[in-house]
């Protein structure tokens, strides 16, 4: 939760990370030599600062540093606003007790005008240059290059509010502002946070003490919005539904002041929280073709699915290198968008195309439309055009766990090489006890040469609701940011549908529980552990896949923020520094020779 100063402040002179070292430009060269020295905590006071006349406990160092940052923000804001809160007379506290002084300065900001920092500085005789050096350096500390990195949402956990939650609106707002002022980590969102650190929250707090509902600064309300979301989730977790209800309504207000990705994310999460509070669970038996349509729009507009398809195809292609008959089992056929590219690559294979058999699994049809067969027919048309022998079979199943390998008409591996492909399907099985084990045993019975798995990179399967909520907030914020960054003009149908698609996932993650909560994403490392435990060994995706993925990204417009990363043979696609989906390939660990 604490900002890791060591990481950011490489260039700054003042840094503090877990109290282990201090550096200040004015201390002089002698201290610079002590940069890496471990802190002496004999008397509990940091020695280096003590030399300057400040008494700070080493254990408090990070805390003090953070508060100084906040203070710096306040000063900066006050000067920017042109309102000179600093011109009034100071009420001096003991400035050498740095932590106490900073704390008192901060609490001052919630009420009457602040003490004059300059006069305080003047009083600290030989050290006047020191804090001043610290401040501009601290402003550099704020430059968070990963502004989408939701580093910390302290909420109540890290900084318990000084006041407990009574009913009056105004107190709650003050509590929130003090919470938000103490947790100033920038929550970045493309459009609303160009520089989250500059217009700090406390600067506006002085005005807000008279006007509780203050939407003066959208960046300030952005951070407040996040905190409210977290507070609401925490209230839900603690079953304090009355409070949660009030907070949800407040979120709506705050969200209205935002623009862009932040607003949409907040709206979806608020709606999901409201559903959870009022127990209006979304019915999940919606027309599956509707979800397919939504996913098609999502496919069109952003590179995640394309990345998934291309990387998985590359792995499958390499596994099929010399086979004459190949069989692909697709756990989620949807519209079959993955397979044209594979079929084309197989058709132009140096040795000529193999016979291609595709088994597609999809949700059962409520009416007689039989979407699976239609997709199969389209693929057959394509296959005929490009000259591949093609066979298709579709299976409707409510859950992959219902699948029996005998149904699939598997042929012996000498005759036919099998690949199993799962894009965003495996995590649903975690909702059912025994689901994933059953599917894994089915996969093993299929004896695939390769199993390609594409999953979202987030841990939304933890036992604690608040953790899941936090992680989901982080994940979907990045995702929505990337949608915003895709450069598509707003009244685009693709954009709207994609957001709806993601919104439904959010709803499922937040509002549902038990078997209804199917969006149980796990991270790549979790899947790795799981797969290795059940007897699969990893297949490295190779440089071809990486090259293709990079090229694809370079092509698609609006992909400037996306990054392809390689992670122990698996490929991950992310937005700026946050990986969002991961492709991995597996084979049976006990493959006999000749397969």
């Amino acid at each position, binding site marked *: 939760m604490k900002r890791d100063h060591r990481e950011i402040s490489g260039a700054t002179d003042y840094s503090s990370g877990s109290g282990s070292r201090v550096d200040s430009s004015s201390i002089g060269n002698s201290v610079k030599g002590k940069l890496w020295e471990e802190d002496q905590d004999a008397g509990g006071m940091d020695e280096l600062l003590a030399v300057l006349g400040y008494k700070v406990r080493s254990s408090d160092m990070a805390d003090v540093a953070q508060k100084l940052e906040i203070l710096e923000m306040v000063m900066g804001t006050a000067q920017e606003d042109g309102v000179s809160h600093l011109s009034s007379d100071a009420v001096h506290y003991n400035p050498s007790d740095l932590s106490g002084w900073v704390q008192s300065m901060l609490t001052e900001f919630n009420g009457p005008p602040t003490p004059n920092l300059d006069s305080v500085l003047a009083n600290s005789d030989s050290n006047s240059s020191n804090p001043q050096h610290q401040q501009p350096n601290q402003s550099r500390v704020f430059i968070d290059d990963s502004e989408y990195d939701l580093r910390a949402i302290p909420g109540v956990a890290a900084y318990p509010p000084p006041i407990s939650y009574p009913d009056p609106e105004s107190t709650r707002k003050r509590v929130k502002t003090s919470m938000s002022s103490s947790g100033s980590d920038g929550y970045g969102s493309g459009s609303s946070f160009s520089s989250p650190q500059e217009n700090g929250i406390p600067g506006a707090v002085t005005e807000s003490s008279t006007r509780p509902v203050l939407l003066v600064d959208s960046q300030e309300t952005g951070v407040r919005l996040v905190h409210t979301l977290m507070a609401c989730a925490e209230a839900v977790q603690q079953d304090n539904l009355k409070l949660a209800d009030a907070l949800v309504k407040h979120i709506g207000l705050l969200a209205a002041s935002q623009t862009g990705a932040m607003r949409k994310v907040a709206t979806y999460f608020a709606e999901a929280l409201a559903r959870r509070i009022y127990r209006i669970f979304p019915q999940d038996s919606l027309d599956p073709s509707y979800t397919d349509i939504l996913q098609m729009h999502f496919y069109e*507009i952003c590179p995640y699915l394309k990345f998934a398809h291309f990387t998985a195809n590359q792995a499958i292609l390499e596994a099929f290198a010399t086979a004459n008959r190949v069989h692909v089992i697709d756990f989620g056929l949807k519209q079959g968008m993955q397979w044209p590219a594979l079929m*084309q690559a197989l*058709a132009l294979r140096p040795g000529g195309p193999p016979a291609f058999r595709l088994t597609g699994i999809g949700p059962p049809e409520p009416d007689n439309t039989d979407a699976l067969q239609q997709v199969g027919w389209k693929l057959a048309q394509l296959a005929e055009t490009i000259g591949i022998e093609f066979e298709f079979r579709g299976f409707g199943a409510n859950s992959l766990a219902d699948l029996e390998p005998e149904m699939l008409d598997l042929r012996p591996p000498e005759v036919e090489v099998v690949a199993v492909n799962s894009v965003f399907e495996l995590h649903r099985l975690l909702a059912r006890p025994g689901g994933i084990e059953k599917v894994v045993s089915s996969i093993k019975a299929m004896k695939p040469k390769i199993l390609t798995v594409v999953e979202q990179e987030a841990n939304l399967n933890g036992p604690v609701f608040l953790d899941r909520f936090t992680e989901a907030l982080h994940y979907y914020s990045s995702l929505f940011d990337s949608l915003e960054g895709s450069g598509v003009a707003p009244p685009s149908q693709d954009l709207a549908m994609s957001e709806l698609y993601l919104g439904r996932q959010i709803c499922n993650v937040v509002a549902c529980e038990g078997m209804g909560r199917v969006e149980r994403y796990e991270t790549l490392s979790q899947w790795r552990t799981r797969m290795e435990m059940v007897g699969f060994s990893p297949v490295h995706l190779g440089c071809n896949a990486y090259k293709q993925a990079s090229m694809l990204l370079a092509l698609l417009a609006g992909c400037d923020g996306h990054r392809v990363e390689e992670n122990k043979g698996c490929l991950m696609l992310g937005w700026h520094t946050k990986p969002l989906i991961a492709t991995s390939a597996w084979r049976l660990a006990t493959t006999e020779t000749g397969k």
Partner: protein
Amino acid sequence: MVQNHHGTVGENKGKRPKFFINDHVDILIEILKRLDCRSLCVAASVCRLWCTIARNDSLWENLCFRHVSPPPSSVRSVVLALGGYKRLYMGCVRPVRSRLGRVRRASWARDEVQLSLSLFCVDYYERLGGGSNSNGRLVGESSPSSLMFLCKPMNV
């Protein structure tokens, strides 16, 4: 242009110029084969003969595989079935090359073509339409994130 020239010098010489390119279609083809896309399009508006030649898919095939070693013959049948080289070039290869221009390395030329082919195939599949897929999605509909919708509708 050639005919104009013929007209202006006609009175001087009183006979046809010695060399009239349209009489030598094979040379014309060889020349047009080496043009880049823009020049080829311009050439197509010169006269009917040039237009016919410029529409010939083999010229566009050369454009597609210009910087790459010649592909296996199986490629041609696939590409022709999927819509032809002109469509491949205008729809995929050209955008791929221009967009990758800034990050391009020489070794990527072959991969670019392969990627173009894959995207071309995906485009064909999308155009097949039918079912719940939005078969009304025309090539002209602009969607900057998907390669397929970069170009205006082509009259191929």
